[in-house]
């Protein structure tokens, strides 16, 4: 199986998930071995995903948890 760049991009997300069949995986890796551009697209995508998964990327508003539980408590008390 020989892939062009477009085919590799189409599979990048599944490849990152580890969800491509063995034959496809081998074909992607064969392509990546000689295509710097696709290798860089894969690396940059994967690295951006690592960055957005960082807990500090999205922080909760200050006091969110306390306000949420106060509201729940209010509801529990009202329901008796």
């Amino acid at each position, binding site marked *: 199986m020989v892939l062009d760049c*477009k085919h590799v*991009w*189409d599979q*990048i*997300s*599944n490849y*990152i*998930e580890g*969800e491509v069949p063995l034959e496809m995986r081998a074909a992607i890796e064969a392509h990546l071995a000689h295509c*710097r*551009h696709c*290798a*860089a*697209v894969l*690396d*940059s*995508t994967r*690295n*951006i*995903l*690592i*960055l*957005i*998964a*960082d807990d*500090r*990327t*999205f922080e*909760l*508003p200050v006091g*969110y*948890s306390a*306000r*949420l*539980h106060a*509201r*729940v*408590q209010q*509801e*529990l008390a009202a*329901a008796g």
Partner: protein
Amino acid sequence: MTEETQSATGPDPVSRDAELIARVLAGERELFHELIRPYEKSVYLAAFSILQNQQDAEDAAQEAVLKALKNLGDFRAESKFSTWLISIAINEARARLRHARVLRFESVDEPAKDDDGSFVPALIRDWREVPSQALERKELRELLQSAIGGLPEMYREVLLLRDVEEMNIADTAAALGVSEGVVKTRLLRARLMMQKILAPQLASKSSRGGLFGLFRSKAGGSWF
């Protein structure tokens, strides 16, 4: 949750939740606080992915949690409690967004369709490893948030649930009420959009050194 409670109920979240739900429904209603505590951030982020505003997201998250409390007896164990709770938050946020759009006289009749057209990522020659230490964290965070905020809603939702909250594909699909295939298709597009937006921006910061310097292309930042 206190550590005692966590260790007493075991490490498996599904069993933990099942036990807490049974006890809440049996009358120990205060335990609802413990039930929701591990999912507070997910609920907020699910709402935020749709509403894109902190205050609105917090309001929707609160409302979703109260609805979960009210309807806890309707929860069926075929799905995870976390998925059920997050789907309530998504529905609550979507309802608020719809209401806001109606107020602004925008059309709500035509939901966006999945874009099946071809997509070209940002083509670069090389890419360095992610740095482990967080320098210039604030600026990086703003870049990431802005990129995610700029995605169309359907892509933002899957990215937030799968890649920020790290829910699995099946749970993401269940929370959004779509098939796993749809999640995978949207995820591909969302991830490539993020790459296209962010790769050039991160690399362009490289000349300033610091965190961004580590994103510099080994080939000298060549783009074509």
